[in-house]
């Protein structure tokens, strides 16, 4: 039965949820302000930005010359020369040069996956400290030569004599000289992410107004958070920017309503996705500092939150079974079931706003009886979240979305929110993170405010 693959109703006891392992604590984070592509960071490479984000983190927590257990980060748009991007950034930072590092890439879930992978290593006792992160530049994106030119160049290198070389060169055609620019299109469908989401948005009958409202809230919540100093210990300025350049504190529903649709135009009147309710291409980097309780205590560092658990899912969007960005709709129910939780137990929902339509389609799926029964294997709808708990300090529509940097942005901000919130009904505050990714993937996670274990 196909639905069984996504079944959320089969609880099993996991060592992770049973507290058998050490706890992985979020100490804090640092990111540079996110900049719209072609803006302040046009001349900055991924390595520049990741190094800057690392150095800000090191300065905030006094980690100069510290040997961190492991650093993991990644970029979605990555130059081939950056094969050791994270390690190179570490070498350029104030950390000890003896800090190992590795690159990871899982499209837009990269940042969150680095957090989960490193948290697991901490829980297992392999490392005591870690820095997770991500960076992306759509400004300084790699441009490849065409397949034709690439083949000629490789053959040229192998050719031994002048006549052989000339023969190889003669194969070159003018069209081969056109560069091969990167795009966010799905290789198997040829559709861009926006076009894919436009189909999903229409399928779930998400209104233009509902999408604009998500965008409006994102900008106003993010602006308010900046105003009250929420980001003072989460963001370090870079290249003259001290706030995300995409942020429009004065945007209004009226202004958003004037924008023309940019995706799903073939849908005609049903086209609802505009530049206002879709995230723009963005440059930026983020980092998160993780450690054991003992490691943090020994350095007098804060313990904001605990990484409880994470889950990845993927959907078959190629054959149109589900929308490209709908994987979190399956990952979240599985994750909550494994942890014996429901939406009632979550105090903060951080649902990445790739598009306002993505957030709303996901919520609609969870509220849908049919989807709950046939796709999640439940008795009815999975549940409805309290919108007052959704992206309360803004999300990607306002901040922007440098693909691999988004996970780190959300984890650090949510950890601080959970810490600042204090206990809820006598238990630590709890937050859920949901990030959709290219390739029909999604990664989700639960964070909980740190509380000292009993007996301490």
């Amino acid at each position, binding site marked *: 039965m196909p639905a069984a693959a996504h079944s959320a109703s089969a609880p099993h006891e996991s060592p992770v949820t049973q507290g058998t392992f050490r706890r992985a604590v979020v100490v804090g984070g640092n990111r540079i302000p996110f900049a719209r592509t072609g803006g302040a960071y046009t001349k900055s490479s991924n390595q520049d930005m990741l190094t800057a984000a690392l150095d800000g983190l090191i300065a905030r*927590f*006094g980690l100069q010359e510290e040997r961190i257990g492991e650093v993991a980060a990644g970029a979605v748009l990555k130059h081939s020369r950056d094969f050791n991007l994270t390690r190179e950034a570490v070498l350029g930072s104030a950390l000890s040069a003896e800090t190992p590092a590795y690159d990871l890439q899982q499209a837009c879930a990269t940042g969150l996956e680095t957090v989960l992978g490193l948290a697991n290593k901490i829980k297992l006792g392999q490392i005591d400290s870690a820095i997770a992160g991500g960076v992306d530049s759509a400004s300084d994106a790699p441009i490849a030569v065409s397949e034709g030119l690439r083949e000629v160049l490789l053959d040229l290198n192998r050719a031994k004599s002048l006549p052989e070389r000339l023969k190889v060169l003669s194969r070159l055609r003018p069209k081969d000289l056109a560069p091969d620019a990167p795009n966010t299109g799905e290789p198997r469908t040829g559709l861009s992410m926006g076009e894919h989401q436009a189909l999903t948005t229409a399928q779930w009958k998400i209104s233009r107004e509902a999408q604009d409202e998500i965008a409006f809230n994102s900008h106003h919540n993010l602006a308010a958070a900046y105003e009250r*100093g929420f980001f003072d210990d989460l963001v370090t*300025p*870079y290249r003259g920017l001290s706030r995300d350049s995409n942020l429009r504190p004065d945007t209004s529903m009226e202004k958003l309503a004037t924008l023309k649709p940019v995706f799903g135009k073939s849908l005609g009147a049903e086209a609802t996705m505009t530049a206002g309710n879709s995230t723009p291409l963005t440059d930026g980097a983020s980092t998160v500092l993780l450690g054991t309780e003992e490691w943090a205590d020994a350095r007098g560092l804060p313990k904001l939150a605990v990484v409880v658990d994470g889950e990845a899912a993927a959907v078959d969007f190629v054959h149109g079974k589900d929308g490209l960005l709908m994987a979190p709709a399956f990952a979240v129910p599985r994750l909550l079931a494994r942890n014996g939780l429901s939406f009632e137990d979550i105090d903060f929902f951080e649902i990445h706003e790739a598009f306002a339509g993505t957030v709303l389609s996901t919520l609609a799926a969870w509220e849908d009886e049919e989807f709950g029964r046939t796709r999640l294997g439940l008795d009815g709808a999975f549940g409805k979240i309290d919108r007052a708990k959704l992206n309360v300090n803004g999300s990607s529509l306002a901040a922007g979305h440098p693909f691999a940097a988004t996970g780190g942005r959300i984890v650090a901000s949510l950890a601080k929110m959970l810490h600042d919130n204090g206990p809820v009904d006598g238990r630590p505050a709890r937050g859920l993170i949901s990030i959709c990714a290219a390739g029909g993937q999604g990664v989700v996670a639960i964070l909980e405010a740190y509380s000292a274990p009993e007996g301490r």
Partner: protein
Amino acid sequence: MTDKYTQFVSHGIGKDLAKKLGLPQPAVLRRYKAGEPLVPGPVLVLGSGNGRTAGSDELAAALVGWGLDVRRSALPKEKLGAIILVLDAVEHPEELAGPVLTAAPSLRDLAPGARVVTISRTSASAANPAVAAGRQGVDGLLRSLAKELRAGATANGVLLGDGAGTTSPSTLGALRFFLSGRAAFVDGQFLTVTSGAGQLPADADKPLAGKVAVVTGAARGIGAAIARTLHRDGARLVVVDIPAAGDHLAAVANEVHGTALQLDITSEDAGKRIIDHAVERHGGLDIVIHNAGITRDKLLANMDEGRWNSVIGVNIASQLRINEALLGSDQLNKTPRIVSVASTSGIAGNRGQTNYAASKGGVIGMVRATAPLLAERGGSINAVAPGFIETDMTARIPFATREVARRLNSLQQGGLPGDVAEAIAFLASDAAAGITGEVLRVCGQNLVGA
């Protein structure tokens, strides 16, 4: 880095040219470098009367203990590193003649970057007019002598209050500071020692070892120099600046192996957040340097509310609020030390700076009134008033005005941010515990002001 003119006239063709044209010939100052001798030659110690007094004998013995080459009378043609006039026993202006005229011929034998230091008693502590006249005479004498010295030599004085003697820890601390390259841009100034409190550091190159220090406005300029100097002297640092300066702040924090705290010091809870950060991350708080400051210059006739209030808010109101939190906290370590950055503008005034001068005058008043409050817990508070310092801020002054401003002092050059930092580092050390409520000018004896 000394300015380009000073470099040009220091050697070769530039030196000859400046001499022939009668142009100012500023010297390259002798600044502190770890491992270099305290003074560039033997030290001549002269007391009043016949040159030997109890105070001068004790002091000379202490200097021998530091490993200095001490003379009680000058040898012909020997280049001296310093002359110390111990005048604590002077009870009449006529008694100045002995030591002063004995020292006079030796002034020609001073090595470049040499020091003259007087040690005398405060006139305020004398009830007898003749005694007061003798003591106050030292003030005029010293300030004039400072203007006569050349080749980067300076003259400064230590004043002893009732509670201090010639070998009190802070007398020796202040003397050591004035003799050293740390006081390169301090000239014609006095420091008053009022008690026998304090102790000299176990390691003279690490006088702040084990201390936790907070520096506000540390992202650049003088604040960054203060952070570097305190780090060099052994302190653990919390560097503070507004969030918008966070990138520069992070670079400074990483350089000095400290922690960066992005914070608007005018916020209500700034004091608490500073204390919490220092205690949680570094286990305590010993030293706070109030350096953050802004200028919003306008003639008073053109002044608006925004310019006036922002300068008062950042430069003095924030310090008052933070000090209140410090004084009310039970989390500070013993013997807390506060040093504020004032300005010669706050002493002598400056055209276009009524708001700035009011704020910096305010700092001086605040420091004096806070001293007794801190004394209860063995702490001290002082201010340093920089004169013309070569920073990004002064680099924006128009060329001609800047050139005049930087030459109008006895050393004929602007100071460096590090010169201000050295004075602050000294006042933040336990060797300066007997000095409180004072304002030390770091201005190369600027011609304007006190």
